């Protein structure tokens, strides 16, 4: 698709209002999701106000440096998301792919931080889902947000894989798309396991050789997966994906930015308020 600038991305003549259906749908869904997080955040705050005796001292559990870092990463992922929308509106498929990959990568860093944080809280700080009401509300709220990020990442990966669908409908692509997608998922999981294992090893001052020995499968899978993904990424055939799909990426972007904004609220209300 090279006819950049021929599509009006701000007005859809086929609808009564000029707003594309997908965008309107996403806005209405986000209104609903606001209420969803509103109810969860309220639950958390109510139980912070009425915390039963024996509740943990929260500021001693949190690691505000780590959470600030992951918050920053998530905010930057929104920037990349916006760039992806912008690239596709100009018909630049390659640059869109790069920005999608960046968004995925930053989203995964955020999720990795959350996995590390949960693990750390459970094992080091003795905060579990069921041993205090704070644990119940904290894990449910931040976990639900994490699920939203994870769904966002899955959606981004699907969009990325879809961008390779060939323009010629007679070429087989479905099996290839499936392999590409599952490869992405497996590499992601293996990569996360590797990085989290590395962090653990550094914490425990374990020699790197020993770490590599323990995590051979994860490291190997990650390297092979990344190589194959790179090979999949170098596709020279013309693709169907183009400027007309900008609305799909834009709707996904609305979701991504919303999840990001919710995190700003959660970071403020759940984390920062504890330090007042």
């Amino acid at each position, binding site marked *: 698709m090279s006819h950049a600038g021929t599509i009006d991305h701000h007005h859809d003549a086929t609808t009564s209002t000029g707003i594309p259906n997908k965008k309107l749908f996403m806005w209405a869904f986000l209104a609903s999701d606001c209420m969803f997080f509103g109810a969860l955040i309220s639950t958390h705050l109510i139980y912070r106000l009425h915390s039963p005796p024996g509740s943990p001292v929260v500021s001693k559990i949190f690691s505000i440096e780590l959470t600030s870092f992951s918050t920053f990463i998530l905010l930057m992922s929104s920037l990349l998301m916006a760039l992806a929308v912008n690239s596709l509106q100009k018909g630049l498929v390659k640059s869109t792919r790069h920005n999608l990959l960046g968004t995925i990568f930053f989203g995964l860093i955020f999720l990795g931080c959350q996995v590390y944080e949960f693990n750390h809280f459970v094992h080091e700080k003795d905060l579990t889902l069921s041993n205090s009401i704070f644990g119940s509300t904290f894990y449910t709220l931040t976990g639900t947000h994490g699920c939203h990020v994870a769904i966002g990442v899955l959606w981004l990966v699907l969009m990325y894989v879809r961008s390779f669908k060939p323009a010629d409908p007679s070429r087989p692509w*479905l099996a290839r798309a499936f392999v590409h997608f599952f490869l992405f998922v497996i590499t992601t999981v293996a990569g996360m396991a590797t990085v989290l294992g590395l962090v653990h090893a550094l914490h425990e001052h374990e020699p790197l050789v020993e770490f590599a020995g323990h995590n051979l499968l994860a490291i190997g899978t990650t390297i092979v997966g990344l190589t194959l993904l790179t090979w999949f990424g170098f596709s020279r055939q013309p693709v169907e994906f183009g400027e007309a799909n900008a609305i799909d990426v834009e709707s996904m972007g609305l979701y991504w930015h919303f999840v990001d904004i919710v995190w700003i609220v959660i970071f403020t209300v759940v984390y920062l308020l504890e330090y007042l």
Partner: protein
Amino acid sequence: MDTIAHASPHSHEAHAAEKRPWLFTRPTAKTGLVSWLTTVDHKRVGLMYGFSALFFFLVGGFEALLIRIQLAVPNNTFLQHQTYNELFTMHATTMIFLAVMPLSAAFFNYIMPLQIGARDVAFPRLNGFAFWVFLAGAIILNVGWFIRSSAPDIGWFGYAPLTSKAYSNQFAGDISTDLWVMGLQILGVSSVIGSLNFIVTIINLRAPGMTMMRLPVFTWMTLITAFLIILSFPAITIALVELMMDRNFDTGFFEISKGGLPILWQHLFWVFGHPEVYILILPAMGIISEILPTFARKPLFGYPIVVFSGASIGFLGFGVWSHHMFTTGMGAVATAAFSLATMAIAVPTGVKIFNWIGTLWNGHLKMTTPMMFALGFIWMFMIGGFSGVMHAAAPADAQQQDSYFVVAHFHYVLIGGSVFALLAGIHYWFPLIFGRKVSEFWGKLSFWVIFVGFNVTFFPMHFLGLNGMPRRTAVYDGNMGWNTPNFIATVGAFILGIGIAIYFAVMIYTYFKGTNAGRDPWDGRTLEWAIPNPPPEYNFAVTPTVHARDAFWYEKHHTDEITKEKVRHALAESAHGGIHMPSPSWFPLFTAIGMLIGSLFLANHNYTGAICGGVLTLLGAYLWAFEGPGGYHMHAEPEGSAKDSYTKH
């Protein structure tokens, strides 16, 4: 449905040429089981909602009759207390979530796109999905009847701590409460998805000239109800998630021993539960606002005020939830505020009643069966409204709380209100949907039997409540002075049952043997009457242009102008390739089955199975996305008959 014959020969050629992967070959059947399982036609989805809702309406009614038999005489032993608890829980849950809401959804689906001059909803596959998910939720809720756990027994609002593991497990592995949690959760998904679709459809798919203030009132009420659904269901979703976490993963949201507050459940539940009341009644008000002008032969009196008061009811509906909790000790200020807000809702509701009376005033009333039900609605809904204002006063409510007075009140608004209007709507739109007209004699007879049975059942409950009879008791003593009204109520329930039986018997008879209705049998005012009946699958041969609020009325009185305009538009449309139709798809059903499997395993605390169901759901969603919207073109011929041309798309 004369389009059926033309479908097959063309379609096979066209699909062979497309070379899509076999997985994505679009089904093309227009009759038979496959055509229903894969349908994306809003009218068929509407019919499926309607038939399922009527089935569950009969199930819920049967449960109600069992309850009334048990209460007919003091100290009755007809039912065990456990069964009684299951029956009142499932009667309410079924009637609200599986009968009235989907019956309203049936009308939203079938009628709303026709009223705005659209050919389908904005996301046709998503619409089919919403129905299949609804069916999955209905199955999960009712599956308990057939397994050892039996049906949920916690009351329809499932107050904590009744739902905690300590109180709701009669034996290890009793999953009735888990089924209730998952069932409602899945029904919520269906309602929210359906509503998002309706919102986009109403805002974006209006025919040219159909401005917002020209929308028929039923469509307006659909829009407001859809907003209520998407904004109120998240509260119960979260409440149910928290409850599920308590039951499956030992969290402490509603566990008193862990510092949980059961009152939080009540707040979250009623933040959803009160808007839900308006979700049940606003569509009914919309139907009434269509029927009254048609049979009073006058435009609706004060259209903008009716629309605005509907919106105010919806808005205020979010600020009154705590009036269900006056006796929980919220404090004087909160109680007073919620009391005042509740009374304030009586104002827009009263405004609507006066507008309906204004519509009838000086009209040339045609007393048809739908009109009888509509007039019955106004009267019965007012009685329910009056008792509603009575419990808006917190001190009075302290006396009426949890008594049969409340039972009388909400049955007056739900049966006298919602159900009367829905029965009116079925009669009113029956000729449009099936092309046959219901006999006036049998229709009116069913109305009077229902009307008498309803009042004989529920009016005595006001006295029972004021005399102190608590709701949800399986037995009462013979010396409380409650014997006669209870017996009368049971007799009334059977009269009501007979009325409903007559009503449906007449419908079934009419479907097979009724007289042909002919086009526009009621001399209607809105666009759905502009098309032949039963409607062709593309609805409008030419997309109508709207010139006035009562769009079809205007068309009938400006025939020359409209005919010329239609010819012009038909030419323009066929130059663009004809009528664009969405392709049917298997994936809505596939994805919904994934959800059904996952939820059943989750209710059984089997997480491997739940994850497998989740993966199936995800796979369905991915294939759905890869499949793409599809579509083909049809060419309408002047009256209803059409040829498919399956141009590649």
